[in-house]
Each structure stands twice: as C-alpha cells, then as structure tokens.
C-alpha cells in the first residue's frame, strides 16, 4: 500500500490532482456542519439509521 502519511493535507498541490482539489473544495462544507449528520441522501440515508 502507498504511504499516506504525507497525503492528508487537503489542497496540497503536490499530492492532489486539480480534479481532486476541486472535488475536495466542494465537499468541504459538509464536514463543518455536523448538525446535518446525514449527507448521503436517499437509500443510504435510511440504511444508516439516520443518526450516525
């Protein structure tokens, strides 16, 4: 497995492609809004019991 130790810094241009950086910037909002605990929607939403 590849070493991920140096890859956890979001937005790091060395390790992330532009498509990846774009994606991460778009989903970043979901992580700071814990009250919206269920962000998967639809069928997955129900399967998690709605409160994970």
């Amino acid at each position: 497995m590849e070493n991920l130790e140096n890859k956890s810094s979001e937005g790091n241009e060395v390790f992330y492609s532009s498509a990846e950086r774009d994606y991460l910037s778009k989903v970043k909002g979901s992580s700071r809004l814990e009250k919206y605990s269920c962000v998967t929607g639809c069928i997955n939403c129900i399967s998690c019991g709605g409160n994970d």
Partner: protein
Amino acid sequence: MGQGQLFIQWDSTNDCNLRCSHCYHNREGNQKHLQDNNLMDFKKVKSMIDDLYFTSKRWERTPRFHISGGEPLMRKDLMEILNYTQSYKIPTRLLTNGTLITKSKSKEISKRGVKKLQISLDGNEERHNIVRGKHFAYRKAIEGIKNCTENNISVTVSMTALKSNKNDLEDVIKNSIDAGAKFFGFQSYVPDSKLGINDPEFLDAKETYNLFKRFRELSQIYGGKIKLLETEVLWNLMHCDDPLKKESREKGIFIGGCGAGYTGITVLSDGTVYPCRRLPIKIGNINEGLISLITEKEVMRNLRDLNQMKKNTNCEKVSYCRGCRAIAYAITGNYMAKDPMCFKEFVKEKDLKEHKK
C-alpha cells in the same frame, strides 16, 4: 459524526429469492433476478474495499460500505467479505429483504461487526407479499427483524412509498414496532422511465406532500416507540431554515441533501459504477479507482454543479436538497432537472414549525 462520509453501495449479487415489482433489475433486463457469470470475485471485492478505506483516509472522510443486491444473503462469500470490512473497522450495513436471516445467520452477521441493517416492508402482509412476489415474503421478513433484534443488530425498516401502499403507512409502522425494529423510514419510488408520470405507482407532488404530512402525524403517535426518520431527501422541504442554510444558499456551499456526485457511488455486481443505485447512468468500472470515478467523471462533476442545477430547477435550496436526481432523470431524461415530486409549493409555515431539531 464529526466528518463527512464516503460510501459505496454495492450490489453484491443479482441473485434474489423474491420477485419485487419495483426492483431496479426488472428495468435492466434481469427480470429473472439471476447472476450472470460476470460476478466480481472475492479478490476484486477486497480491492474495492481497500480503495474505499484508503481513499477515505486520504480525503479525511468516514468510509461506509452498504451491501445490497439482489439479496446480499445469497452471496456465498458474504461472511468472508464481512470479515474483511471488519478488519478495517469500516461501518458496514446490509440492505436486505430479511427473509434469509435465520437465528444462526443473524448471529454470524452480528459477530462480524454489523450493528445496523435495513429490511424492507412495503405494506401490510397481503400487500407486501403482492409487491414482493412471494407468499412467504412478509412472514420471513418479520422473523428476520426479530432475529436481528435478538442478536443486537439494530433494524431500520424501509418502505418504498407507492400509490398502492401509501395507505398502509400506519400498519407498517405498527408492525415494525411489534417486530422490534428501532428505526423506520420511507423512500420515494423511482418510476419506470418508459412510463414516467404515467407509471401507476408514481406519487405526484401533492400526493407526496400528503404522505409526508401523514408521516408527521404518525410520528406524534408512535415516535416514542420507534424512531421515525425524516431523512429521505425531500424532508429538507419540511425542515425549518437556519443561519447555516442561509449561508449555504448565499455562498453556494454544499451542506447536504441528495448525495449523488458528492458522498459516494454505487457499484453493481459486475463492477459497473453508477452515481447512485437509483440513477442508472454508467460512469465507469470500479477497477478505475474511486478517486478517478468521483473526481473526474463528467456526470459526477455535473451533479456537483450547483450553479447549473440552480438555473435548471429555479430553486435556491440546491445546496441542501436538490430533490432526487434519479426521479428527475426517470421522468424528464435529465438528471439536472427539477425533481417532479418536489412539493415545495404546498409546504406551509406550520409544517416547518413542526420540525423537531
């Protein structure tokens, strides 16, 4: 939870012991519900789970693995697969019809770290058996719920809301409580794209709103005995506004709603990838890797284009709702169009006030 999720919903096999009228497989040329010889083998499944684990770690998200079917209990190496997800401590759920969950099977599943599981009930006994195409479907599903409960697996009962079963809502809630289920929720039905709004099981916006209202009434009666989930995407219309939503509208920041394009993908039994199980647009194969599939595929990028969606739908709630993209696609042929079941125009101030935060 403290961080966003990344999930794979995996159709582990096409094999199924039931013949449900609303099954996706009927529309995909697999009316016999049998697996072809192109099933992902255990080695490929492990590779997919590795990918989920390491991509989640890379993106600092919580991995989730949801195993559906066909019927996942018909997958012969299911227990080996659960051993593997358990080794990574990946929260894993089964989406099952429940009929094959015997006492011993529920013990085996529980032992492998599955703490929650979804079982479908689509009406009272008579209707469920009609929808599910087998006379034993209801009785066995109820047994499955009881067996899971006895082995400390928390069961969510999921009902697909149809024109033919919408009046069974209370019966299904009561029967779920009696069987020991901890959660109950319903999902909207995705109509057959060949029929669109003429699909006889399709609920229009007004009917959908009335169903949500009825659910709220039943929550008042049964909410102390079972948790009634307001998690289906259109519940966002019935939930009150707050500063966070206001900010998301103004800045176009995704904070929730339909997860298609954002929080995961669906993988079919042969490795084909869809954005969502309900949205049958092939975007690639799982062997291309999650990072490429999620970040680079055009359909996924479009689903994340909130500005375009806002234009198409003329709706300011796109950052936390977006309706169901699959229903929009099934009816209009455009997955970026307005969800035809959206009942925003019917919602009253009183509905928002009834929302329990």
